[in-house]
């Protein structure tokens, strides 16, 4: 009973499903970089924290400031901004070591997760935007 066919088959199927699940996330590198550089503040689920750290999940800021985001990731932000109706006036440090490819990967991970459904960034687009950061 213990080692019946069913007993082995079910976990096998579960494993396969899990594998397929992972493979269907196209921005794994973006996810890894996000967890390493951003999740401490914006949290793993992109929820942010009170009026201290703005959310990325469902944030209206992402679409409204699409051209600004690559520079924010690289050079940080110290401004007063409004995200989903809440005012944020803290500082975010940038990560200057990020390359254009890495920035594109992170942004595309954000744009397609936690219910976000925004068009992906192209690499040449990110490169061009990084040319004229303030």
């Amino acid at each position, binding site marked *: 009973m*213990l080692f019946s066919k069913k007993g082995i088959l079910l976990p096998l199927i579960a494993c396969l499903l899990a594998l397929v699940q992972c493979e269907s996330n196209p921005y794994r590198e973006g996810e890894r970089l996000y967890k390493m550089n951003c*999740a*401490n*503040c*914006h*949290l793993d689920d992109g*929820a942010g*924290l*009170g*009026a*201290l*750290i703005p959310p990325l999940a469902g944030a209206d800021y992402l679409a409204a400031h699409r051209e600004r985001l690559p520079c924010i990731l690289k050079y940080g932000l110290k401004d007063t901004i409004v995200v989903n109706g809440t005012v944020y006036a803290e*500082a975010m*440090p940038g990560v200057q070591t990020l390359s254009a490819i890495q920035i594109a990967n992170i942004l595309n991970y954000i744009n397609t997760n936690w219910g976000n459904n925004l068009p992906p960034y192209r690499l040449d687009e990110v490169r061009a935007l990084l040319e004229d950061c303030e």
Partner: protein
Amino acid sequence: MRILYFLFLAVLFACNQPSGPRTLPILGERDVVNGDTIYPAVPDFSFVDQDGQVVTNALFADKIYVVDFFFIHCPTICPKVKANGLRIYEKYKNDDRIMLLSHSIDVKNDTVAALKRHADKLGIESRRWRMVTGDHDAIYDIADDYFSVAVENPDAPGGFDHSGRLILVDKNRHVRSFCDGTDAEDVDRFMLDIDALLDEQFGRSK
């Protein structure tokens, strides 16, 4: 095959541990003096909170409380620890038997006014969650008593090294449990410890 079978039984029993009332251990090195066991206890302290009120042990005389160490401009683990602290706050915010106590280790920048602003932006009530500052050495010393790490280190991100631990203290000033405040699952386990301690110290039914 026999070994496998035993292994299986062992796992089965491990899963079936009775889940009745648990008693949390008292953490730390104990001394035996004249046949009496002396447990380590949190010493007297006096700090100032986000409202400018003095906070001493007296505030927690008949309560259990959850402690952490943080600083406002912390670029690393603090928001995660705060987010998990908020989960604990939300779960027990109508429970008078428990409070939270966060110590700032950046005594220069985290003034009473800065702590107030921080607490307001987190959306917490001081009745339940105190954020304190105070004498530099007193804060760093008491971190030791809570088995927590707090060190000034110019090479660390933001200038401070500290552990993101959440520490559970009983109403007799003994440390009874802790968890990694950046790890949501460990915090789930920690909240079960909180429930067990509430039962132990205040009786089962509420």
